[in-house]
């Protein structure tokens, strides 16, 4: 379902944009304004991160956003209500991004059913390799939701093929070592890595971790299918407010 949508969009645009927000940060109202701005600015799909107290794969900016959202009363229930509202109101696909404990405590089955019932399209779980995720993967498949696997530069080609066997929708390719929001220039080795990703999967490739400006997006055009903008929009919102995010996103593509 999601794969079809993405491939159709790709016929119209050289590269798609996926943005990310931490639900409830800095508030639920501001989160909804952000979604509105991003959709208006033309993003093709969005990750809604349900905050977790121990986000080990996230760098300092998203980590603090998680913490602040929790301190200000973000609960899983409120986040799911928010996600349902966003999915009902805006015509782009929304995915949940979070850590496994959120699903585990809620009940994997109930969580996935609820995602399906409220029009969400898939999920990215940062700390759930398929070896630990059979209940999750089976339930996602049964509900026709996309379970998005993660490739990293340290993933062997053999393992990419294995991960691809569980993939639906698209592949999330982590561009570099480190946590979200790290700042280093893309390198030539990224090209080789993306070639390996491409030969491991026929699904669209999303590239994230450190994509922060138009030149990054330009660089990825033709090499990947989706540019993922995560930490940078948080930085812009914190500095210049929600509207500045809309302007930033709309200028990422020609």
């Amino acid at each position, binding site marked *: 379902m999601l794969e079809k949508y993405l491939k159709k969009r790709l016929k119209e645009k050289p590269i798609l944009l996926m943005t990310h927000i931490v639900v409830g940060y800095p508030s639920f109202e501001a989160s909804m304004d952000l979604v509105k701005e991003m959709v208006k600015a033309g993003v093709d799909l969005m990750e809604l991160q349900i905050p977790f*107290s121990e986000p080990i794969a996230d760098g300092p900016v998203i980590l603090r956003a998680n913490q602040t959202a*929790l301190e200000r009363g973000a609960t899983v229930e409120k986040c799911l209500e928010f996600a349902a509202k966003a999915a009902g109101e805006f015509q782009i696909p929304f995915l949940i991004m979070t850590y496994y404990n959120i699903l585990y*405590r809620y009940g994997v089955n109930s969580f996935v059913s609820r995602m399906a019932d409220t029009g969400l399209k898939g999920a990215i779980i940062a700390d759930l*390799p398929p070896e*630990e995720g059979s209940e999750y993967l089976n339930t996602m498949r049964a509900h026709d939701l996309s379970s998005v696997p993660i490739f*990293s530069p340290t993933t062997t080609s053999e*393992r990419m093929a294995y991960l691809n066997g569980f993939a639906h929708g698209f592949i999330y390719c*982590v561009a570099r070592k480190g946590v979200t929001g790290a700042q280093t220039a893309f390198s030539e080795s990224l090209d080789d890595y993306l070639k390996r990703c491409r030969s491991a999967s026929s699904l669209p490739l999303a590239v994230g971790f450190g994509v922060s400006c138009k030149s990054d997006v330009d660089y990825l055009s033709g090499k990947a299918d989706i540019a993922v903008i995560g930490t940078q929009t948080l930085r812009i919102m914190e500095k210049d407010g929600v509207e500045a995010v809309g302007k930033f996103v709309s200028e990422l593509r020609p």
Partner: protein
Amino acid sequence: MEQRGYYGRYGGAFIPEILVSTFDELVSAFEEAKSDPSFWQEYEEIMHTYSGRPTPITYAENLTRHFGGARIFIKREDLNHTGAHKANNVMGQGLLVKRMGKSRVIAETGAGQHGVATATMAAKYGLACTIYMGETDVLRQRPNVFWMERLGAKVVPVTDGSRILKDAINEAFRDWVSNMDNTHYVLGTACGPHPYPEMVSWFQSIIGREARKQILALAGKLPTRVYACVGGGSNALGIFNGFMNDPVELVGAEAAGKGLHSGKHASRIASGDGSPGVAQGYKTYFLQNNDGQMKETHSVAAGLDYVGVSPILASLGESGRVRFTGATDKEVIDALRLTMKTEGLIPALESAHAFAQAFKEAPGLSGDDIILINQSGRGDKDIFTVADAFDDPHWKTFIRKKAEAYHA
């Protein structure tokens, strides 16, 4: 990566994809070492010549007389180099680091003992070393910070989250995902993703292997009960491993803080407040809310102030093989006071939890019974906390004068 490292329902390896190949490498290095008899020999040799092993068992004659019940024996892990059982795990992982050819180590620390042990190992083996420590713990364990820095380590205070042990673990993982090529993460307890629970308890099993032989030689029989404090659980698993297949009751003392029903404790099992969850790469009992967000914990002992517990202990608790109880901050200070005065021993605040629990139960046992307490570390590091708990006026005067001297 196969699905491995389960103990009943607990354990596993819930790791971000970027670390999968690093864990594969670690698992195979560990498996190789385990099946190579010369590795354990080399390990025992270094623990003997560098850390002073075997550590003795001391008969606590005065405490035995004081309680009038079971005969009390103490396994002296405080006599390890750097003053705690932490050295056992760290030196073992150090040998693995050499095998893997890495040049840098990182570690988390709560009380600072694991950090000091890691910094010591790094100095000896010529490795770069960074230690992550919650800001709260930096403040309450300043002497250990001083030693880590003198030993050449970089100490990074962690200012995110609740600023204690779990937050230091998260930060160490964040470092590792950027630097795994040259860096090994020396996790300090039997928690985290596979192979850490198994690997750390394997190195720590040296405690129990020695203790079983020693108590048989000293007392002519096995102990009725063995007591150990439980933070992450590495010293407990270390000593329990020696008696796992014997008719010996194994008792884990968690940090009951201000009381098991006060909500201000770090007891994941005995309090009944913990529940199964997945965080920091593994599944176990955590102190968490219904949403799965980790709660703040409290203990007078920084090394026990942790939201999770070894998956091996979670499973042994569920099967009933290990009995879990809690000792409160107050019981711990009282036990420490008594142990110092009667035996001239200074257990770490962490270890004093095992003493406190043993003291509650010793009078109910007979003179034929033996109890063995694991003194996992020495208490010198706790001088500031203990001086505060005793409200020691001479100490306060000293600190004031010292501060004035620095101002002058």
